[in-house]
């Protein structure tokens, strides 16, 4: 990482800081800082980076038996839940068995995807050198192949977090989640798209790896996507065969109940994962960045971007476990490969640092955070103009453009009518 480039740049770009907030005689950082960090100097940002590095080192040096036992216990619990959930759903014609089965299977899938799969695939347990718990070999209970997910998530999302135009997780290419994304007519469907995505989230994640957006815009040749699509088809096919054909078939006459139970467990997992994951980067107050913001970015500035670009959720230890510790999204983005069971402790230290440096630490209970996400999705479905006075003119134009085909059609129909009457 080029850590020195900062200081000898002669042409200081326009800084978004509030100059009044800086003490007299202090030079503002020669790069844009988000408003909540605007009072920091370049040196302070580097110091903050060193403090975070120290936290990372402390926890890395401490990895051991406790972490290994933790993930093994999680895997055992998940296998137990899955086995009992599937067993109960085999006799799913009995309502208590059906509800118990759905709960156990949904919990198993939530654990598998969120506390085990996501974290293992981040390499949090690679140091154990156990092939069954290694990011190179682990495969999770989700239609997308882990190999594709790793490159899209670990590389692109975690490196270019919240940089609009680079982080493909900003709206996942289908949603408008920040006003830095220019409004397009299709964003009117934002609420419906989000609702549909919530139900089929597992497939959304799988297709995300195909870069369909880029393909439609011609940036990404179709040929490259073919093998990826084949891999998705193969894995998604196996998953569907298991949940929707084999297990129901084994249940004999109870097949419909088993089928419905498996669908329900997958949907419960989808809704939960969607909720938690959308609370990570899209609630109110979370910062988005532009490509200029990351020119010559140092490790310290990367840390700062991760902190201000993520939001936590408050809750009990069980709640944190069920979110796969993504409720500690800030800590996860700072240290994506440190075992997630450590995030709660790390959060105390990170929060203290944020307080000391006077920068925002986004957190709140899930109902509040998710509320702001929903509000944002609704609001951003409309052009900026509807909530920004100066854009009112543009709205009218856009609306006209949108309705033009319809009104044209109406005119045509009216014309046909007139001709009919005349004849």
């Amino acid at each position, binding site marked *: 990482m080029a850590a020195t480039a900062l200081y000898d740049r002669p042409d200081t770009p326009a800084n978004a800081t509030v100059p009044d907030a800086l003490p007299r005689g202090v030079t503002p950082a020669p790069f844009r800082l988000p408003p909540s960090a605007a009072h920091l100097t370049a040196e302070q940002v580097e110091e903050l980076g060193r403090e975070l590095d120290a936290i990372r080192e402390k926890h*890395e040096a401490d990895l051991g038996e406790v972490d290994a036992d933790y993930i093994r216990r999680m895997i055992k619990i998940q296998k137990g839940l899955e086995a009992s959930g599937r067993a109960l759903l085999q006799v799913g014609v009995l309502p208590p068995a059906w509800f118990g089965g759905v709960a156990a299977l949904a919990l198993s899938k939530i654990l598998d995807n969120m506390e085990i799969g996501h974290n293992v695939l981040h390499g949090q347990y690679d140091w154990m050198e156990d092939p069954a718990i290694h990011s190179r070999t682990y495969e999770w209970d989700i239609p997308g192949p882990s190999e594709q997910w790793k490159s899209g998530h670990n590389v692109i999302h975690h490196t270019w977090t919240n940089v609009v135009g680079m982080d493909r997780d900003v709206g996942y290419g289908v949603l408008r989640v920040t006003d830095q994304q220019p409004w397009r007519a299709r964003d009117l469907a934002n609420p419906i798209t989000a609702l549909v995505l919530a139900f089929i989230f597992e497939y959304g994640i799988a297709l995300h790896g195909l870069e369909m957006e880029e393909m439609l815009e011609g940036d990404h040749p179709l040929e490259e996507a073919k093998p990826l699509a084949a891999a998705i088809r193969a894995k998604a096919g196996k998953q569907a065969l298991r949940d929707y054909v084999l297990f129901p078939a084994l249940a004999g006459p109870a097949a419909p109940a088993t089928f419905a139970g498996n669908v329900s467990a997958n949907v419960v997992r989808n809704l939960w994962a969607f909720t938690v994951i959308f609370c990570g980067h899209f609630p109110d107050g979370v910062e988005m960045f532009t490509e200029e913001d990351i020119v010559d970015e140092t490790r310290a500035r990367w840390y700062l971007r991760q902190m201000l670009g993520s939001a936590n959720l408050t809750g009990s230890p069980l709640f944190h476990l069920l979110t796969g510790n993504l409720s500690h999204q800030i800590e996860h983005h700072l240290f994506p490969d440190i075992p997630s069971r450590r995030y709660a402790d790390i959060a105390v230290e990170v929060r203290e640092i944020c307080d000391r440096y006077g920068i925002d630490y986004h957190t709140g209970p899930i109902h509040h955070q998710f509320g702001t996400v929903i509000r944002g999705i609704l609001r951003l479905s409309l052009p900026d103009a509807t909530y920004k006075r100066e854009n009112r003119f543009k709205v009218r134009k856009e609306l006209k453009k949108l309705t033009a085909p319809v009104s044209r059609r109406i005119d045509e129909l009216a014309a046909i009518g007139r001709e009919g009457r005349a004849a």
Partner: protein
Amino acid sequence: MSTDVRPSPAGGLRARRARLTARVGPLPGSVRRLLDNRLVEGLTTPHGVSRYLEAVHPLWTLEGGRALVTEVYRETPDMTTITLRPDQSWQGFVAGQHVRIGVQIDGALRTRTYSVSSSQHRADGHLTITVKRKEGGLVSGHLASEVRPGQALACSPATGDVVLPDPRPDRLVLISGGSGITPMASMLRTLADEGHRGRVTFLHYARTRADVAFAADLERIAERMPHAQVVIVTTGPGERGPLTGRFVPAHLHNLVPDHLEVPTFACGPTGLVDAVEAHYETLGGVEQLQVERFTPPVLQTSAEPGDGTIRFATSGIERSDDGRSLLEQAEDEGLAPESGCRMGICRTCTQHKVAGGTVDLRNGRRSDAPEEQVQICVSVAAGDVILDL
């Protein structure tokens, strides 16, 4: 001196579970065949049936590659024999071969190679390894003092070419030193079980007699065999006996005057093996000699990046280290290892380091142990390093 190491104090849930585990064997072949089909595979995708079975018993996997510790026996203060019950993947071994044993230490799986020390004709199908505790040795120290019956270890199939010849030669000379006794013990025990009637001369070098694992056992075996002789040569100061001191050709001339015409195996520390080899080379009997060195050639480790060599083992490329990241240097050589963020967060670039030293640039932490994974985008060489690339 010898003690049997039992599971930690009787009672205790863990100990009781360990004893129960130790009594249960691998899955019977019939059950395995029942489970190894496409329906079960489809039902247990993506994890596979083994991940569910192993939650019940550590040996119950279809792919195998594990062994259960059934007994731990302290041979000498620093040598411990571990009896292993391998799973179905075990294809047996030939005396002289070794296995790779993996054990979880402080959460991480560590793998080392050990010779099998038991007879290849053991009736119960178990095998033993005999581990010498090395000064500061992470794995040997752990195996010697922490491993308990009921624990599962990773255990590879047996490999190695320095093995008892088949058909058995009429005459045989075995020379070992230190922990080099283990493959020789396996050979002698195997021959004894076969009722071998040929002449076998086993010469073992140790500091004192008390340092020799299974000395009494081997001597008893030799007594039962018609023409076998076990000679323990003590090398420590003030030791007395028929033969003392480090290896000199005279030892062999005394015991087996025509040893240059007899198949000979030498195994142990580099010093001993080098001396034996030099002797056979000088007098022209080297085609009879097979050796195995128990101390691998030492790689230079260095505090400063930039003065060692980097070897990419798979592609057979070697280059002198220029101090930049291992990833950049691999790319310079035209290799294209996978990489992603190039800042150490995504772990796409993780590669297997066979041996040598590396330093993680982010925190200055060194990795010196063999067989470790390193993130090559943020690692530089510290001295010589061998990568599986």
